[in-house]
């Protein structure tokens, strides 16, 4: 007998018990689900409530025919879980999937089809769309191929940042769109690595949280088509159609062709963290890329259709997502799957939070009706692994469920505050009757979030969905012809105003007005309580030519144009200073809503109009000023006076009197030409006339009341 010493980790499990299809195997471990590297082999674990048999299918990289098929022996099944350890696989040249046998009875909800190779829903990496935009082999019988990759990574002590939620300034960006334009001048355009190269820009801008549009593996060719008029090829660019929930989009990795997307993604998170920037992922659990009965069979449909999808009594797919199917989020099995997935991203990739697309669907029960106490949302709220993660709901769905302010929150969830967006945009364009509602929105929407904290309100004017900010002040109507649907797609309630001319214009008055409106919008957003979210590019006036639904454009239309950084440096400087001012001014970030208490002998929040202490709440009023009393960053008593005028005429404002030792200083005045439109935070000049100030037509003012600096 040989006496060669074996490494101590070698155990009895390191040896096969039998051979199948030429490979040594042994009964596997049920947990963890998916495929895991174990000593000398790979453990495969897959479950299905009513499959009759399962076969493991193994491919060499990119091969269209498998090199081995290993049926799971019946005695390897525990409960509904089939598991098997397979030895001596060359894991860097391996793609795997499953054939699953069971009834095909669509009326009863069963759609098993063993002629198809199914992907592992727990695959940690996927190949098949590894390089963005490379036309796939449409005849490939297994298009989204599960892969094994190493999970070790040298984090150098990195961990999630745990910034207080109320201190965040969120920046919503698309990984590819952020750096794919040649003007980005990065070495790895359109990728996670390219984003890393632009971290200095983000730091200088001052944002401390980046919210990435979908990064779970999706297929940019899904629903792809060519616009017959322009010849442009239209792709699934945004990616709100998940193929694989545990796998980062390989086509967003410069190293995706080498299946190194996990490392590249982790490196990105690590570098963002070291720059003080949190990472929030936009996650899409409400539906999958499998679509309706005519869509592709990827995994869930052939594994356990009835378990994963909401079905009608006739076995048809409910369509609350507007995309063909609806995930059965509150079934116990799917709940567990979603929870495992988010835990994985939080623990494995150190991400700081999640924004849930069409989250109202997550509150629907197996019959499609909204639940009072939806167990998935509750589980996420109380999960120990996710405890420090930001959880943000897009609290509506395409089935008409609108839950802004009423999303089941467990004092844990935040929401995209759609009412903030609507009111702020209507006020800015000059609609009458908005002042009363605006007052609620700028103090963190206590009518919606009382008792939950101001951070429950994610305030935004624009997001990927809808006009960019520059288009909000340049177009009255959407212009979506380039989407190839005759301008029928996209929302019609844009609450936008073009300033007198639709689209680009050389008219200096209109251009001046638009420039001012952009600044007014940024003042409003960045001085409101709640967490502000800026759409990437809005800080430099990025336009989409009036397209309010650019989901299908992988082109200059939707990419960040870095030449705007110089071209619109005036706006960029204004936004940077507003972010800097917010971060330097705790009064704008208090976690609690106004209490009506006395601070420094003044109410914590009070409302003003042309006359101090006398706000005009009438239907025709388009002017509102708020006075905040509290502490400045140095702990000294201080005041903020923020006035917003959406009227077309200027107005003389009587300023509330300050305590004797304090003076009003001007941080921002959007009716003044740059560079005097905004001050460097902390260096605001004193206001000459402490009693009165004129606010220009459609303008915003921010004053700070503090001691005169000697």
């Amino acid at each position: 007998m040989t006496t060669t010493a074996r490494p101590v980790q070698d155990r009895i499990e390191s040896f096969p018990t039998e051979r199948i299809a030429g490979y040594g195997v042994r009964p596997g471990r049920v947990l963890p689900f998916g495929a895991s590297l174990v000593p000398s082999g790979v453990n495969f674990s897959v479950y299905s409530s009513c499959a009759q048999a399962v076969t493991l299918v193994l491919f060499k990289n990119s091969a269209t025919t498998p090199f081995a098929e290993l049926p799971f022996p019946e005695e390897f099944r525990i409960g509904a879980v089939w598991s098997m350890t397979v030895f001596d696989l060359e894991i860097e040249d391996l793609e795997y999937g499953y054939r699953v046998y069971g009834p095909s009875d669509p009326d009863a909800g069963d759609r098993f089809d063993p002629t198809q190779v199914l992907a592992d829903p727990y695959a940690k990496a996927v190949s098949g769309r590894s390089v963005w935009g490379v036309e796939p082999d449409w005849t490939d019988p297994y298009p989204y191929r599960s892969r094994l990759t190493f999970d070790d990574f040298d984090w150098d002590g990195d961990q999630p940042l745990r910034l207080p939620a109320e201190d965040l300034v969120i920046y919503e960006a698309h990984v590819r769109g952020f750096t794919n334009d040649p003007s980005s001048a990065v070495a790895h355009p359109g990728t996670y690595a390219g984003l890393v190269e632009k971290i200095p820009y983000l730091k200088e801008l001052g944002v401390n949280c980046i919210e990435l549009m979908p990064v779970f593996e999706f297929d940019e060719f899904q629903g792809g088509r060519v616009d017959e008029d322009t010849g442009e090829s239209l792709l699934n660019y945004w990616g709100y159609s998940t193929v694989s929930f545990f796998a980062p989009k390989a086509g967003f990795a410069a190293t995706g062709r080498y299946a190194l997307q996990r490392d590249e993604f982790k490196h990105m998170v690590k570098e963002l963290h070291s720059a003080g920037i949190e990472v929030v992922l936009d996650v899409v659990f409400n539906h999958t890329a499998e679509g309706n009965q005519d869509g592709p069979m990827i995994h869930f449909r052939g594994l356990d259709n009835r378990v994963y999808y909401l079905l009608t009594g006739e076995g048809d797919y409910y369509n609350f997502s507007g995309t063909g199917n609806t995930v059965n989020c509150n079934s116990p099995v799917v709940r567990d799957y979603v929870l495992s997935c988010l835990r994985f991203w939080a623990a494995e990739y150190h991400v700081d939070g999640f924004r849930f697309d069409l989250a109202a669907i997550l509150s629907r029960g197996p019959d499609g009706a909204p639940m009072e106490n939806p167990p998935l949302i509750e589980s996420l709220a109380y999960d120990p692994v996710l405890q420090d993660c930001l959880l943000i709901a897009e609290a509506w769905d395409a089935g008409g469920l609108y839950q802004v302010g009423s999303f089941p929150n467990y004092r844990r969830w935040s929401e995209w505050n759609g009412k903030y967006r609507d009111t702020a945009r209507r006020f800015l364009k000059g609609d009458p009757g908005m002042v009363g509602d605006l007052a609620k929105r700028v103090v963190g929407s206590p009518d919606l979030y009382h008792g939950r904290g101001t951070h429950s309100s994610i305030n935004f004017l624009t997001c990927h969905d809808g006009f960019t900010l520059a288009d909000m002040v340049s177009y009255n109507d959407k212009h979506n012809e380039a989407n190839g649907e005759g301008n029928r797609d996209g929302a019609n309630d844009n609450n936008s105003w073009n300033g007198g001319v639709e689209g680009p214009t050389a008219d200096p008055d209109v251009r001046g007005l638009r420039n001012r409106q952009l600044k007014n919008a940024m003042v409003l957003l960045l001085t409101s309580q709640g967490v502000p979210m800026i759409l990437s590019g809005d800080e430099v006036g990025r336009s989409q030519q009036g397209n309010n639904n650019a989901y299908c454009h992988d082109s200059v239309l939707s990419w960040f144009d870095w030449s705007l950084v110089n071209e619109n440096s005036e706006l960029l400087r204004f936004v940077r200073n507003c972010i800097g001012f917010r971060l330097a001014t705790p009064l704008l970030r208090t976690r609690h809503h106004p209490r009506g208490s006395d601070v420094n002998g003044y109410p914590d929040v009070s409302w003003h109009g042309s006359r101090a202490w006398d706000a005009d709440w009438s239907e025709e009023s388009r002017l509102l000023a708020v006075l905040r009393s509290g502490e400045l960053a140095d702990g000294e008593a201080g005041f903020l006076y923020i006035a917003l005028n959406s009227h077309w005429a200027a107005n003389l404002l009587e300023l509330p009197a300050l305590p004797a030792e304090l003076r009003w200083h001007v941080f921002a005045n959007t009716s003044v030409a740059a560079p005097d439109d905004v001050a460097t935070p902390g260096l605001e000049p004193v206001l000459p006339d402490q009693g009165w100030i004129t606010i220009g037509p459609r303008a915003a003012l921010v004053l700070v009341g503090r001691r005169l600096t000697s």
Partner: protein
Amino acid sequence: MEIRTRVIESIMVLSLVGELDSRSAPDVQQRILAGMPRNECVLLDFSGVTFVSSAGLRTMLLIYRQAQSMDSTVGLVGLSDEIRSVLSATGFLGFFIVSDSLALGLAALRHVEQEASGVA
């Protein structure tokens, strides 16, 4: 994978030839780690390396970490543009002292040695 070892001006230079992937990585790892000197500089010459896989990257990182634990320093030269790009995108590049040529690599490591002895 072939590994040639030589000493140039008291610095150990390891020249690798071939593909560093999951087939070759365990052997490369064992051979390099076994001969890793204590408190010295090691230069890895990659000009003969045509491909580095995920397993290969991990081997490189292990060599770096092992060297660090022995107060040694690892330099890298001869990276192809493609390999350099992969190392850069995944962040592995930041762990090494990377130079464009053998001469520059030796100079960079000598500089490290001098700094170390200066501190001591």
